Structures are given as C-alpha cells and as structure tokens.
C-alpha cells in the first residue's frame, strides 16, 4: 500500500477511534420514531429461527407503536456480503440494528467501528465493542424440559437428535436433553446425527429417517426446517419441535416444542434506545426472562407428565434446579462436574463433550 493510502487509512482509523470513545447511544431526532433494522439469515417463513425473531420484532413494534419503525432484510448470507447489508442499514439512519446470526459477528464489529453512533445487538456471538452488545438465550433449559417429555413418552428409550454443527450451543442442547430424559428414564439413550447445515430439509429428513430406523421413537432437532417433525409424522413416531411450534407439520407426532421468544428483550432494548439510554450488555437470558417457553402439549401427553415439566420449569426459573449440576460424567466416564457443583457459564460456552446417555463421540473432540 502506498504512503498516501496508508496515511488516509491511518487518519480514518484515528478518527474512528476518537469517535468510538464518545458515548455510543443512539439518539433519534426529537419527535421522529427510532429506525430499527433487523438482519435475518434465512427467510421468515412460517416456523424456525428467523420466524421467531420476526415475531419478536412485531411484538416490539406493537408495544412501542409510534416510537419506532422497523425494517428487516431476510436471507442475508453470512460472510463478506453481510457487511454491505449491515452497513446499508447503518448508513440509512437505522440507529439500532439487530444481527440475528453467529456468522454476522465479524461484519457487525467492522461496521460498528465505522458507525460509532449506531447501536448494534448481535445474537449468539462472543465479540463485543463499545457499541455492540450481544444476546443469547439459554435454550438448553427448554431442552431439559423437552427431555423429560421425551423420557416419559418414549417406548424404545431411544431418542433421535438431528443436529446442525457441533458447536457448544448445539452440544449443550443435546446434553441438556439427555439429562432431562435420563432424569425420568435412567435407561434412555440419545443418538445424534450431524447434518452440517443449519437448513437442509433433504438431509434433515434423511437423518431423521435413519434415526427412526435405529429405534428412535422421539425425534428432536437443532436445525432450521420442519423436516424432522414431518419425518416423524410420516413414520408415526413422536417429535419435539424447536424454535417454533411445529404442530401444523406433524399433528400426531408433535408432542411439544422448545420455542424462542425475543419480544420482551427487543422491546426492552428498543425502549432504552428510544430513551437515549442504550448501553452495551452481554445478555444470556433463560426461562425466567421469558425467552424460552414450551409449546402447547399434544393431547397424548398425560397430565402428570405436563405437571412434572411445569414443576421443573418453575424450579429452573427460580434457580432451584440447575440443568448442569454435578455429579456429572461425560459419556466416556470422565467426571466433568463434582457433586454439588454447578457448571459455570464459561465452561458451558466451551462444551465439547457428550454427557452420559448420548451415543458416540463428538466429531470435533480430539
């Protein structure tokens, strides 16, 4: 790079550094509604990760009617192109931007550097900046509850899990599910198939069918399509949905679902931005913050099972029950948590092993 270019670039860096040091709250012009942008990784559709985010957006828009306007862009691929889209939102007066997928992490940080007055909220990531907050939900708490339902409803004691990528978030979901299942059914087993894609209905249904052929009679998934539920319906076994209520796709198979709820959080954050009080935070909310709920139960789920789940849910919300507490061993027999100890958030976000009850070895554990 030649000297002139370098000087210009350095000057810009210096300028942005100074700008970054200034308070980074989003200030709409007096009287004008706050413009809020949402970046989605997939189409909104009728169910799934993005659908739940969009539902949250709509709830926020309703709760703060007149004070905010929102715009969303769907199917933005993660990677180099995302930066342009995020930047476009920032450059067109959107002072609060939610980027709802892990893959937007680096682009969000980059754009945040150039737009210090804009507030960014990135979901499921780990990098932050003065004007970039991160948020996530303890989905694994819902998974534990789902496990209880699965444990009680399974006749073969084998559950099937169609999973996307072996990242800690997915792994902790599998483990929580297994622990929930085993808490009511000590013989329960969870078989996992990795499809290496967040959204691939073809592969997901092949994985689901494979699991069914291997004795699984309750399926669940950590992927974005409804394929697993549909496969369960076709083969007449049970399924527990994820992200959204998927009973429409499997009226007989769908027992319940672990559903995401972002409306409360979005409303809170938007309100603080409207009031000029937005601050950078790292939020990892759970059942007690209303971020995770169980979908209505299928009528085949007995009342006592529903009651059992309700109790567990209340206990998790109150802090009485912690999903990952010792004694806890992984599925090779190694002790991971001593008796009485609860897992730390740090260890949770690095989880790279299966607990007892899950079959096989994590693809990425060395």
């Amino acid at each position: 790079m030649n000297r002139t270019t370098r000087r210009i670039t350095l000057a810009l860096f210096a300028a942005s550094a100074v700008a970054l040091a200034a308070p980074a709250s989003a200030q709409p012009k007096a009287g004008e509604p706050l413009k809020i942008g949402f970046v989605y990784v997939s189409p909104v559709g009728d169910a799934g990760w993005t659908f739940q985010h969009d539902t949250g957006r709509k709830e926020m828009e309703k709760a703060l009617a007149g004070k905010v306007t929102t715009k969303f862009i769907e199917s933005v691929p993660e990677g180099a192109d995302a930066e342009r889209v995020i930047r476009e939102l920032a450059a067109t007066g959107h002072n609060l931007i939610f980027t709802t997928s892990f893959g937007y992490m680096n682009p969000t940080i980059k754009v945040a550097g150039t737009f210090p007055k804009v507030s960014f909220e990135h979901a499921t990531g780990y990098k932050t900046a003065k004007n970039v907050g991160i948020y996530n939900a303890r989905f694994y708490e819902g998974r534990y509850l789902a496990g209880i339902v699965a444990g009680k409803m399974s006749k073969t004691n084998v559950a099937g899990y169609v999973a996307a990528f072996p990242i800690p978030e997915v792994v902790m979901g599998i483990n929580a599910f297994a622990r929930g299942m085993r808490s009511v059914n000590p013989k329960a087993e969870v078989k996992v198939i990795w499809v290496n894609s967040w959204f691939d209905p073809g592969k997901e249904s092949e994985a689901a069918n494979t699991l069914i052929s291997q004795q699984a009679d309750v399926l669940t998934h950590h992927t974005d399509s409804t394929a697993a539920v549909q496969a369960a319906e076709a083969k007449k076994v049970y399924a527990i949905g994820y992200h959204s209520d998927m009973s429409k796709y499997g009226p007989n198979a769908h027992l319940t679902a672990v559903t995401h709820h972002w409306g409360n959080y979005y409303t809170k954050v938007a309100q603080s931005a409207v009031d000029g009080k937005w601050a950078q935070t790292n939020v990892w909310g759970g059942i007690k913050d209303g971020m995770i709920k169980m979908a209505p139960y299928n009528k085949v789920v007995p009342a006592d099972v529903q009651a059992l789940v309700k109790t567990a849910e209340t206990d998790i919300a109150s802090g009485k029950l912690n999903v990952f507490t010792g004694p806890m061993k992984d599925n090779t027999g190694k002790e991971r948590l001593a008796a009485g100890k609860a897992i730390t958030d740090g260890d949770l976000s690095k989880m790279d092993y299966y607990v007892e009850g899950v079959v096989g070895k994590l693809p990425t554990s060395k």
Partner: protein
Amino acid sequence: MRFHLEPRPEPSRLAGWLSPLVATIAVLGIGFVLFSAMGKNPWHALYVFFIEPVDTLYDVGELLLKASPIMLCAVGLAIGYRANVWNIGAEGQLIMGAIFGGGVALAFHDSASPLVLPLMLVAGLLGGMAWAAIPAFLRTRFNANEILVSLMLVYVASFILSLLVHDAWRDPEGFNFPQSKMFTDVALLPNMVAETRLNVGFLLALAAVALGWVFMRKSLVGYQMRVAGLAPAAANYAGISARRTVWLGMLIGGGCAGLAGVGEVAGPIGQLLPVVSPGYGFAAIIVAFVGRLHPVGIFFASLLMSLLYLGGEAAQMQLALPSSVTGLFQGTLLFFLLAADVFINFRLRVTYPAVIAAKAV
C-alpha cells in the same frame, strides 16, 4: 412462411458488438415486465436494481470489489474457451486458491513480514493451477472430458475446504464454529480507496485483463491457442501441440481462479469459512461469454454481473423483492446473449413457399 438460418460467408462484426447490448436490453425488458407483474412501479424497480446500487462512493467500491474475482476468473477462462478448452471448474479452482493462500496465512500467523501477502498470492495461484492440472492431465493422458472432470472437482474442492475449517484448521478460540483464525493485517490485501472496501485485488484483476489482452493478441502462444480453437485440424497440421494447448488453457484458467480465491479470503472475508464464494466461478463463465471471450468485453461484463448481484440485494432491501431475482436475471442474460450470438454466424431468412408456388403457376 418459413424461417431459415443461413450461414454467413463471414462472421458479422456488427452482430458481435450488438449481441451483448441486445442481451442486456432484453434483461432490462424482462425486468420491466417482471416488476410490473409483481405490482411494483417498474421504472422505480429498475432504478433500484440498476442505478441505486452504485450511487455512492462506497457502493462503487462494492461494485468493483465484487467484480474483481469474477473478472479474474473470466479472463482466464476465456483464454481457455478460445482454445476449445472447456474449464467449467473455475469455482473449484477458486476454492483451492483460497485454501492454499489461506494455508500460508495461517502458517505464518505469527509473522509480521511484508512477504506474507505476496507468498499467499503465489500460493493461491499455484493452488488453482494445481487443481486445474487434474482435468488437464486426465484430458491429455486419458481423453477424459474436461467439462465433467472440472465440474466434479468443484464438489471435491468444497468438501476439502469444509473438512479443513471444521477440523484441522479450525480456530481453537472460535467456540468450535467452522472457521479458521482471522488473518492478521499482513495477510490481508491493502485497502485501495479509503471509505470503501475496495482493495488492491481490483488492480490484480485489471492486470489480468491487460495481460490477457496482450497474451491473446500479441503473443505467439496466444495466437496459436486461438488457431487451435478455431481450426483444430489446421492447427495440428501446423504443428501446434494440442496437448500444450490444453495444459495452457487449463492452467491459465486455474491460476486466475486461484488468484481470485485468495483475493476473496485475503480481502472481504479475512479468514477461511466453509463457503468462500457465492458462485463467482460459475458467474465468470457467463461473464466470459457475455464479454465475447475478449478481455475488454469481460471487463464490462463483470461490472454488469456485479451490478446484478448488488441490484438483487438492493431490490430485496427496498422493494421486498426476493433474492432469487438475481439468478433469474443472470440466466436470462446468458440465454439472450447466446440467442443474439447466433446472428454473428448466421443470417435470418424468411421464405414464403406459397408465393413461390403461385409464381410458378
């Protein structure tokens, strides 16, 4: 009334110039109809799609940034196509270039030497060439159709990349997500225009256009390759080695694609991810044709293709149009170009048999 396509005694140069224009206008026309049918104001939609994406400095930077890898690939491919070497696997060669270049970046992650970047570029070039060498070898040694081999290798390359970012080259600090470490500053292409993301990769693409032109027009080898493409029997008779033509055609295409690949990961991406290209290698094939296999034509055609990508995005943001519109336009552009190209070598003649019969009476 019957239509005949009569061969022209000489290819029409006018048609050669007009066909890309006709194709572009046809795409605009289709767009007009499509947007109207969807209930949008067609003029506004066309504006959003084709004009607005480039109305700020940043956006022009994005246009050139996106056009660079396509341009690089297309120049290389065109040289091969002119010689009848049908490399369809530029996407795979691009991925290989990204892997080789990225590999160098990761190997020297702790170094601050200014040599890292040039080394990466060379590695990327070699990686693309190596991947293209496979279909070249199989074609010269076993007669295997290079279209199919290079196409299959695209998939193999993308699986290899997936393996690397999921496992061997995964960032240990990355929470197990499939991605490599972020490249350090010395491993990134320097910025060219502040306030944009445009990097010197664009200069590489321009250099490729220039070099490609010089090679095809002014060098003996380039001339020989063109002859080999136009009249293989004559070329053979003249002693031009068909094997050398295939090798050169594939290696040049592969090298350019490899360079494009390392340019992407050392540029806007800044690391290795499971997907490093939204189909630039395939878009380059279209661009090569729309650019009439000529480097200058390719320059303009890659800008057009880049505009289609950006326009699709803008249309999504502003008009709630689906992103699939871009693919539609790209396919349509190529179809119309191929159709319009017919008139370079053929003339349309209309005959009226009934009239002739009446005259005979």
